C-alpha cells in the first residue's frame, strides 16, 4: 500500500516495538513481581530485575498456606482468601461455564428468531437488546442485591449465574443475530418441505452451520464472565462463594499483603483467559466485530 523505503521500514519497526513494549509492560511487571520476595523488592528500590528468584509466592497459594517456604516462614498473618484459592478458582470456573452454556442456549434461540421471524415485537426485542447492552452493572447492583436478598440467593453461585446470564444475554444476541442472518433460508425451507418442524430445522440445519459464531460468542462470554467483578462482589460476601476477581479485590488495601503475593495470584487468575485468547484469537476477533457493527 505504501512505498516502503528503508526509512519507512525502520520507522514502522520503531513504532511496532513501542506498541509491543506498551502491551508487554504490565505482563512483565506481573511476571517479575510474582517470582521474587518482598525483601528482594525492598532491598534495592531502583533495580529492574530481582536479585534472586523464588517460587514461594506460588507455593504458598497453591498449598493453601501450608507450605510457607522461605519468604513466609516468619509471616504469621496470611489472609484467608489466599488460602481459599482452589475454591475461588473452582467457583470462577463453575460460574463462567454455566453462564456461557446458558447464554449460548437462550441467546441462539432468540437470535435465530430475531434474524428469521420478522414481527414488530422481534424487532423491538432487538432494539431492547441493543439498549440493554449499555446498562451499567452498577445501576442493577442495588436492586439485584435487594431482590437476591429477599429470594435468599445471596452467598450462592446460582444467584451470580442468573444475574450474569441475564446481564450478558443481550450482548450474545447481538453477536449471534447477524450471523444467523447470513445463513441462507433455502436450507431450512428444503428441510421443512421434507417434513421437518421449524424447531427441528433450527436444531438440525441451522445450529451446525452456526458453529463458528457459537464458538466466537461462547469464548467472549466466557472471558467476560471470568472477569466479572461487581456482580459476585456484591452478591457473595462469604469466602466459600467468592470468585477469583472477588478474592483479588479483597486484597486491595490490605497493608499486610505483599505486592509479590498479589502479583502471583493475579498471574494465576489471568492465565486461563490468556491461554483461551491465544488459542481462539480468530473467533474472538470475528465475534467482537460482529457484536459491535452489524447488531
Amino acid at each position, binding site marked *: 500500500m505504501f512505498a516502503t523505503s528503508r526509512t519507512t521500514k525502520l520507522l514502522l519497526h520503531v513504532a511496532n516495538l513501542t506498541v509491543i513494549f506498551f502491551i508487554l509492560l504490565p505482563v512483565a511487571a506481573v511476571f*517479575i513481581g510474582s517470582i521474587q520476595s518482598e525483601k528482594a523488592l525492598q532491598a534495592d528500590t531502583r533495580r529492574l530485575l530481582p536479585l534472586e528468584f523464588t517460587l514461594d509466592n506460588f507455593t504458598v497459594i497453591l498449598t493453601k498456606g501450608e507450605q510457607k517456604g522461605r519468604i513466609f516462614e516468619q509471616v504469621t498473618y496470611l489472609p484467608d482468601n489466599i488460602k481459599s484459592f482452589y475454591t475461588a478458582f473452582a467457583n470462577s470456573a463453575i460460574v463462567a461455564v454455566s453462564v456461557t452454556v446458558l447464554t449460548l442456549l437462550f441467546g441462539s434461540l432468540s437470535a435465530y428468531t430475531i434474524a428469521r421471524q420478522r414481527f414488530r415485537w422481534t424487532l423491538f426485542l432487538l432494539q431492547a437488546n441493543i439498549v440493554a*447492552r449499555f446498562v451499567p452493572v*452498577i445501576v442493577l447492583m442495588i436492586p439485584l442485591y435487594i431482590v437476591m436478598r429477599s429470594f435468599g440467593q445471596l452467598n450462592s453461585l446460582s444467584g451470580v449465574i442468573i444475574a450474569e446470564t441475564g446481564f450478558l444475554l443481550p450482548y450474545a444476541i447481538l453477536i449471534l443475530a447477524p450471523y444467523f442472518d447470513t445463513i441462507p433460508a433455502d436450507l431450512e425451507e428444503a428441510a421443512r418441505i421434507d417434513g421437518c418442524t421449524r424447531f427441528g430445522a433450527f436444531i438440525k440445519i441451522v445450529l451446525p452451520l452456526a458453529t463458528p459464531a457459537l464458538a466466537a460468542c461462547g469464548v467472549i462470554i466466557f472471558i467476560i464472565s471470568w472477569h466479572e467483578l461487581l456482580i459476585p462482589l456484591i452478591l457473595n460476601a462469604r469466602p466459600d462463594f467468592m470468585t477469583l476477581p472477588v478474592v483479588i479485590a479483597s486484597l486491595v488495601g490490605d497493608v499486610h499483603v505483599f505486592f509479590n503475593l498479589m502479583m502471583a495470584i493475579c498471574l494465576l487468575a489471568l492465565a486461563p483467559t490468556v491461554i483461551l485468547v491465544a488459542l481462539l484469537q480468530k473467533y474472538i476477533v470475528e465475534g467482537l466485530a460482529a457484536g459491535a457493527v452489524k447488531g
Partner: protein
Amino acid sequence: MPWFRREMRASHFAFFMNVPTLLCLGLVLAYPVVYAAYLSVHRVGLAQLRRGEFPFNGWENYGRVLEDPLFWVALKNTLVFTAITVSSEIVLAVLIALLINQTSVWTSRLTRFLILLPYAIPPIANGLIWAFLYSFQFGFLNRILFTAGLISDPVNWAGNPNTALYAVAVPYIWRTLPFAIILVHAALQGIPRELYEQASIDGANAWHRFRHITLPMLRQIIAIILILRTAFAFAVFEEILAITQGGPGDATWVAAWYSYKITFAPPNNFGMGSASAYILALMIGAIALVYMRFIYRRVTL
C-alpha cells in the same frame, strides 16, 4: 402425531423460542431497572432493609445527591476521564490498526499477534498490576525509568492529585484498546484496494491517501467506537478500586465509585445510591439511543 412433531404457527414459534430470554431479561434487567427507580424515591437504609418497609420520600434522594459536592466532583472526574480515554483510544486505534495492516513488515505481524493480549486480563487484576507498576517505593515503572536514567527521584504516579486521574486512565486505555483496534482493522479490510491504486496513479502521497480515502471510509466505525467506549468509560470501576480507591483526596472519585461507596459503605444509603446510579444510567441511556439510531440508519437486520 405427538405435540412436538406438529408444526407451530410462525408467531407462536417465535414466541416460544424467546421465552427463556424474555424471562432472563425481565428478571435481571427490566425488573431491577424499574425497581431501582422505585428505590431511588424511597428511603432505603439498613434499618429499612431489615424491616422490609421503604417509606416514600419523593425527590429527596435526588436532591441530596445533587446537593452533594462530592457528586459533582465525581461527575467532573468521570467526564474528564471519559474525554481522555475515548479520544486517546480513537487516535491510537487508527494508528495501530494501520500499523498492523502492514503485513509485509515482520514486527507488524508480531504486534498483530500480541494485540489481543490485554483483552484477556481481568480488569481487577489489571488494576492491581498497575498499582504495582505505579508503587511509589517499589514500583516497576520507577525502576524502568531509573534504569533508563530518565528520573533521579521516585515519582508518585497514582498518589499525586494532579496525575492520579491520568494514572488510572492509562491502565483503562491499555485494557480496552484492543477492542477499538480490532474494529478499525476490520473496517480497513473493507476498503477497496482499487481506490488506493487509482489515487497513487493520480499522484496522491501517503498522507493524501489517508486523509481522502482511509479516514472518510473509517468515519462510521470511528463513530461506533466513540459511542460504545464513551458509554462504557462512564461506568469505569475496577481500575479505580484497585489503584486509587477514589484518592488521593477526591481526585479519582468517579460516578460508579460514588454510587458504590454511597450504597455499600456505611451508612449504606441504598436510596441515594440508586438515585445517583440512575442519573448515571440516564446519561448512558441517552448515549445508547444515539447508538441505536446510528446503527439503524445503516443496517436493517
